[in-house]
């Protein structure tokens, strides 16, 4: 065994926080799955929209656009919190990670509260008609992802806060930010489709 050609890898880092990490690729796969899902749902929305003459169906209001538009601000800013945390994770800067994630969590919560308020203004639910089903499907799926990743961020925050963290958890902070960028980015086309879509292609 010993006599043969050997490559020694002892000098290599025992971990890595970058796109070289398998976990990063795993998260990219999850992002790809969710992006595909939302794309298909959007294509389906337009398919249904184009197969009827009247949209939104009679009786449905146009969704309000003011509050969701204002809500974009905290949402987009929260991505910067996430970015801050991920950069800090690379440098093993505990304070940076906590501040970044903290900012992310607060802004994300603000956005979500605004979304819940906005839900109450809709005069149709998922049982009303096809438009209701789709709008609530977008809201429901995105909220599910949103809450799941928010919860994950909160857990990471406490792990870092408790000090019981190592490279693995820092890598967690980094890849968490990858998912968060996606959740923020995918909301923008959904927002355009469900809030402005009916107004732009309106025929009521």
């Amino acid at each position, binding site marked *: 065994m010993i006599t043969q050609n050997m490559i020694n*890898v002892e000098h290599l880092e025992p971990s890595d926080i970058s796109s070289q990490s398998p976990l990063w690729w*795993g998260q990219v*796969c999850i992002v790809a799955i*969710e992006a595909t899902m939302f794309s298909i749902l959007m294509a389906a929305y337009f398919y249904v929209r184009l197969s009827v003459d009247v949209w939104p169906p009679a009786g449905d209001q146009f969704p309000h656009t003011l509050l969701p538009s204002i809500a974009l601000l905290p949402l987009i800013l929260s991505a910067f919190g996430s970015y801050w945390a991920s950069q800090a994770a690379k440098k093993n800067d505990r304070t940076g990670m906590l501040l970044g994630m903290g900012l992310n969590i607060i802004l994300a919560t603000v956005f979500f509260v605004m979304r819940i308020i906005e839900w109450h203004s809709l005069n149709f639910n998922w049982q009303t008609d096809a438009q209701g089903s789709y709008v609530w*499907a977008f809201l429901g799926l995105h909220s599910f992802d949103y809450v799941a990743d928010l919860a994950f961020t909160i857990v990471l925050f406490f792990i870092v806060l408790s000090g019981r963290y*190592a490279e693995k958890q820092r890598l967690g902070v980094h890849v968490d930010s990858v998912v968060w960028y996606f959740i923020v980015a995918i909301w923008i086309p959904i927002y355009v489709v469900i809030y402005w879509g009916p107004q732009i292609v309106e025929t009521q």
Partner: protein
Amino acid sequence: MNQTEPIPNSSEREAQALRDLENSWQTPRGMIGWLSCTTHQAIGMRYIVTAFIFLLAGGIEALLIRLQLALPNNTLLGPDRYNEIFTTHGTTMMFLFAVPMMEGMAVYLVPLMLGTRNVAFPRLNAFGYWIYLAGAIFLYWGVFTNTAPDAGWFSYPPLSGPAYSPGKRVDFWAQMITFTEVSAMCVASELIATIFKMRAPGMSLNRIPLYCWSMLVQSFMVIFAMPAVMIASSYLLSDRTVGTHFVNPAEGGDPLLYQHVFWLFGHPEVYIIFIPALGFVSSIVTANSRREIFGYPGMVLSIVATGFIAFGLWVHHMFATGLPQIGEAYFTAASMMIAVTSGVQIFCWIATLWTGRLRMTAALHFVFGFIAIFVLGGLTGVILASVSLDVQVHDTFFVVAHFHYVLIGGALFPLFGAFYHWFPKITGRLMNEAVGKLNFWILFIGFNLTFFPMHILGLKGMTRRIYTYGSEMGWELGNILATIGAFIIAAGGVVFLINIFLSRNRGEIAGDNPWDADSFEWAAASPPKSYNFEYLPVATSRYPLWVAASERTFVTGLRNDRREVLVTTLMDAEPHHRLVLPRSSLWPLLTALAVTIGFIGSVFNAWYITYGSILTGLAFVGWFWPRLPVETKP
């Protein structure tokens, strides 16, 4: 490499290293240990064994179908039971056998072929298996409580909707899809990460074994196809349980949309099952013609191109729905062009066999069977691609014949070949070759007797999914032949099982590399150690084991006292960093249980989605919570 023999140069240090490896990679003993196991060999075997059991279940259902159809006006099964059985047969074979089986084989083989010690996410791997198992048990719980789905394996609404399929039958079907798709996505993600990032040093893109290429492409297809079925089954489930109107024509929904979305998944699904089989065939052909595979670049590109074009075929399942003719013809074009990629592969295999030095093993018999059956199935596929011909043969037994030719011929025959080929690796003993060849001939004859007449039945107007037919239709002979053939296939299955059980205990001892094959899995012990390789190998060629022993290279410097593997770069597989993989853990099982509670509960009460999510969230916290002591620097 074989650590049972004393290693000449080894000192106490060498032995200590092996003990350390053994300690850090072995799964704890006992029930808890078994449940917390995260090694890829064990999980892969669990997939394979479970999926094989469902192959037998699906096979028994097939026999029942054939018995019912053997004679005209047969009353063996009523329409209700018959509809349940054919739906369960299709569902079982597609979702509980074919995909999980291919995934199980990959989970077992890919890390070995890449020269690493486990998949990239071992706990996710375990989780995926438990979820699959839960979904499979869930469906069969339905089967044994008269809640088996009965709307066909693609459950078209409105037939599958709340108005025409009351009760829970279709809910069981739709939710079972959710289980298996989650499982498939877990495996796909971890295989992509493993193949991209954990290859042996030197295994640059142009040296990846063809089987791993096929699994890479298959995994990407899962990533992009499974979300579609997730949406289709959620449409159905939410229409049925919470009253949405996605596919309800009465409220602006669209039943055709379901078909689009379902087949956007459904056609790639066929290739998800078939592409891994291409990998099996390439491995078996290379090893048994004892020459390098002919046209490696063409083979890789064919697989990749197939992976793409598979997403442009779905409408050929919908030619009878009356879409615009130009739109349909796009799919004719794509469906025909995919024959080019399959053709290139077939030509390359024949070229390899032509110039190789063949060793006619049982596995190679199955490859020849595969070529014969698959080429025929592929050619009838060209017929189905034509809109004008398809409207005649669509939804008839011609189609039944076609997809059994491509799926049994294209996937099951290579799979049996793969069983014969890799059995010695998995068990350490060879399977009986003579019985294997007998097994092949029984299956080959039985298969053709069963399915060839179905082409003619279809042309003679026999539609699929009918539970009976009149004696005046002239369909008796074809049906009775098919039924006899089905029992011959079953006999082939029995021969295979006998061979497995006898060889497992009494087969000839195989040694590490009984076939003198080329890829890394044959460098590991048979059966492989929990850590696969004492020293990770380095790929110095596309066929690393065909390099003279003196020129082979290995990796040192990985720590043995924890589960350490090497991460390499994506393109050229240069060593990049070391990675510590997690130890055995019960959390995947607990998380799977939480998810299962949510999924199954939601069939009966939508609030279980919430309960399940909360439980799952808690389980994930347990999963990711750092263990003490937190290791920082080595």
